[in-house]
């Protein structure tokens, strides 16, 4: 029987981490050399963890499915990275950043973890700056900040609309330094397909070499997953097409609990769907809402060109409904408000499924040059994709599947329920609650990798200094390898008539329609039925050309989609079990008279951590009660 122990240290919130750090055991440098750590994923979390662990003297093996670590999807984050520096003298502090995240996450995050993320944020900025990340600066040479959705202070550090790229290249450079020193060994073009558990502890992974198709065994004393999110489960999402759930899901099947799977953020400002063949939606940074005003026509079905619709004929619905925050309300609120307007018939564009994001007033006030300096590359990107120049007419935007707040359950040390298996960054659940505030993901991922995991993992490894190198001939490696090979053979043997992508697209639509921005019990049950049917069809009709022992992109996709069916099923289960609305999880049965989310703290202030009980079998629900000792639980209002 699994018992959840969050291992949150006692004491005042501001002292928990420093006290805990002092109590964590250390591994002496001579022993670190004998220990091996596997890190899977090379985004901000994985690359920062791998480079820091390498610096400490451990033997690190790091894996990614891309050709180089520099391509991890963190590269695509646009708007910025938060820190509590209070450079703007606007009253910001670690406590305020912590408070905004807990409130923004609709009180479904773990207080202690969130506080720690805020606490190490300043070190993250110092480190990136030292690595040569070219953050924006003002004329005196100091770093510049801007504000971001859901908050009222300017605490976001940015590098135009490419903050993710610049931070990722920073971590990639620190990783490159350790690879050159021989402390870290890089394995690119590898898919992690299983985790190997020996005597109850994570001792290695099974990977597929994407070039040769070879199934490989890699042993270690501990395994760190930094494998990102699973927002691609919706098919159409803002994520890179390679993003997937497979590594985390394989850990779940081996006993790691999966927490809050239905908490998937819908990002309010993505470029809307333009054609039937689209497999990807492009994100427009939320920072645009600093200067862009969101509106729809006051009259239903007004098909006129936006520039000929007068001020009086426009409904700036965010400013109208949420006067205190206006266009800067958090993502879940902005997303729902856009969908509400479109569903009511006020949407614009051919499909009626978009709203305007207008820069007219800002351009008039600040000049085109100022807007160009802040968002130039985003405007260019918009024009390339849509063929419309957003300096001359408003952008069209619509919500899209984005960041996953759910993920593997971890304790305060970032360890999953499998000893020796860690999950950091987006692949864990701990810091964002039911909704992630803008610019806090880069902060959390980098903090986890650079300044938290390197401390906590030593506490576990202190017991392992006498454990010899893991023997990859162990029976458990053999068994895991066989399972992986059997699954691939099973997929290849179907030899049906339909492509993997066509199944993914249909699965995505089922989840978007029934477990998307709005959910209700009836729809969720219907979705579950449709998903079961489609999965059955998948295993009869999938067609994968070629062979498994070569570069085979269709096989790669099929492995991922097979797992997405199972992830989708758990999302639905989770959404059904949570009879309240909070953050990204909006159950239509639970809303206020004004159409806002209605939380039920008496019954649902817990983390839902699910235990796997076999394919399509009912999973077991474990509850980690959430205690709010330092932030008062109250209704989340942005009015």
């Amino acid at each position, binding site marked *: 029987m699994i018992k959840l122990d969050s291992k949150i240290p006692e004491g005042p919130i501001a002292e928990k981490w420093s006290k805990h750090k002092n109590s964590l055991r250390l591994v002496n440098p001579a022993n670190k050399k004998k220990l091996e750590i596997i890190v899977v994923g090379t985004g901000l979390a994985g690359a920062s963890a791998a480079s820091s662990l390498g610096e400490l003297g451990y033997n690190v093996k790091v894996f990614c499915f891309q050709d180089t670590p520099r391509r991890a999807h963190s590269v695509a984050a646009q708007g910025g990275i938060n820190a509590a520096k209070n450079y703007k003298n606007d009253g910001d502090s670690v406590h305020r950043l912590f408070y905004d995240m807990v409130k923004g996450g609709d009180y479904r995050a773990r207080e202690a973890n969130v506080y720690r993320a805020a606490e190490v944020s300043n070190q993250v900025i110092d480190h990136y700056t030292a690595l040569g990340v070219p953050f924006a600066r003002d004329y005196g040479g100091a770093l510049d900040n801007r504000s971001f959705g859901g908050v009222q202070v300017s605490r976001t550090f940015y590098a135009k609309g490419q903050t993710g790229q610049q931070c990722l290249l920073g971590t990639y450079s620190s990783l490159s330094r350790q690879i050159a020193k021989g402390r870290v060994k890089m394995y690119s073009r590898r898919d992690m397909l299983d985790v190997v558990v020996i005597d109850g502890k994570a001792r290695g992974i099974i990977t597929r070499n994407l070039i040769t198709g070879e199934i490989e065994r890699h042993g270690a004393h501990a395994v760190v997953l930094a494998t990102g999110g699973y927002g691609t489960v919706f098919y159409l999402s803002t994520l890179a097409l390679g993003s997937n759930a497979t590594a985390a899901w394989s850990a779940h099947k081996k006993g790691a609990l999966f927490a809050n799977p239905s908490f998937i953020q819908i990002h309010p400002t993505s470029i809307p769907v333009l054609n039937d063949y689209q497999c990807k939606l492009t994100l427009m940074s939320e920072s645009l809402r600093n200067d862009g005003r969101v509106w729809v026509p006051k009259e239903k079905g007004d098909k006129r060109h936006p520039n000929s619709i007068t001020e009086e004929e426009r409904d700036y619905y965010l400013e109208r409904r949420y006067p205190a925050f206006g266009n800067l309300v958090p993502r879940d609120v902005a997303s729902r408000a856009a969908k509400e307007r479109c569903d009511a018939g006020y949407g614009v564009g051919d499909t009626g499924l978009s709203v305007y994001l207008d820069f007219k007033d800002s351009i008039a006030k600040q000049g085109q040059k100022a807007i160009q300096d802040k968002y130039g590359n985003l405007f260019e990107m918009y024009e*390339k994709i849509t063929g419309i120049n957003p300096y001359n007419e408003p952008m069209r935007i619509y919500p899209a599947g984005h960041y996953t707040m759910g993920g593997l359950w971890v304790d305060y040390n970032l360890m999953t329920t499998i000893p020796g298996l860690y999950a950091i960054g987006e692949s864990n659940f701990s810091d964002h609650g039911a909704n992630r505030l803008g610019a806090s993901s880069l902060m959390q991922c980098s903090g986890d990798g650079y*300044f938290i995991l390197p401390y906590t993992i030593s506490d576990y490894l202190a017991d392992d200094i006498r454990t010899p190198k893991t023997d990859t001939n162990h029976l458990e490696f053999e068994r895991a390898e066989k399972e992986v090979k059997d699954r691939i053979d099973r997929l290849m043997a179907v030899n049906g008539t339909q492509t993997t992508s066509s199944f993914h697209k249909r699965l995505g639509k089922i989840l978007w329609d029934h477990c998307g921005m709005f959910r209700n019990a009836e729809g969720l049950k219907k979705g579950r039925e449709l998903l079961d049917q489609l999965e059955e069809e998948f295993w009869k009709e999938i067609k994968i050309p070629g062979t498994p022992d070569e570069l085979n992109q269709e096989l790669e996709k099929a492995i991922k989609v097979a797992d997405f069916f199972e992830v989708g099923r758990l999302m639905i289960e989770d959404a059904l079990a949570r009879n309240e609305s909070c953050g990204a999880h909006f159950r239509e049965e639970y809303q206020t008279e004004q159409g806002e989310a209605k939380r039920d703290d008496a019954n649902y202030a817990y983390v839902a951590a699910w235990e796997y009980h076999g394919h399509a079998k009912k999973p077991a629900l474990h509850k980690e009660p959430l205690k709010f000792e330092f932030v008062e639980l109250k209704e989340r209002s942005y009015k």
Partner: protein
Amino acid sequence: MDIKLKIWRQKNATTKGRFEDYELSDVSPEMSFLEMLDYLNKQLIEEGKEPVTFEHDCREGICGTCGLYINGRPHGPQQHTTTCELHMRAFKDGDTIVVEPWRSKAFPIIKDLAVDRSAFDKIMQAGGFVNIATGSAPEANSIPINKKISDRAFDASVCIGCGACVAACKNSSAMLFVAAKVSQFALLPQGKVEAADRVQRMVEKMDELGFGFCSNTYACEFDCPKGISVEFIAQMNREFLSAKLCSHKGH
């Protein structure tokens, strides 16, 4: 739109490749170039044929994974546009489009349109970083940086590592890629300390990996999807020369 395609097909690194012809109808001008290839692959798979292997990931012009030689130009006909952001509205009904992988000795072909660009990682490992250990950074604002210089470092830092500069160059030179990284770090105080050492090691590694020389044709700048300026090559040459003249290499 109706489109004819001539696509380079090659089973693996050791097999000889060839062009194959394909015809596609009902191509929407709203499709991106990669969505058009998805559409082709869907048809090929349904016909029981092997789909075309091509690399891509973010599909929003930032990860640098995609990159095809389209009608004789890296990333196709539009300037400052990655292949994933190129849309079919850039072509005309009835057009024939020739699609090839990057061609460079330093980027061996893996399959069809996918090539191995790990040489770039090797150059980075030779010195494309600031030697600073986690935990030893000073307070970020303790070193002010002139905004103009910082902006210039940013202009160099936008490289996505796609390899278009190498593909565009008749000598397959990696000068623009290396220059961008060298310049970013040489401009900032954080990277300046070891600038001389860095430029020598990176240039040496670039030569060792089989990239060609720069002969100033500026094709790299013209075809760089991020518009990185050849001025950075000049900056790198200055850095390299002064490093050679003034400092001793090594630790």
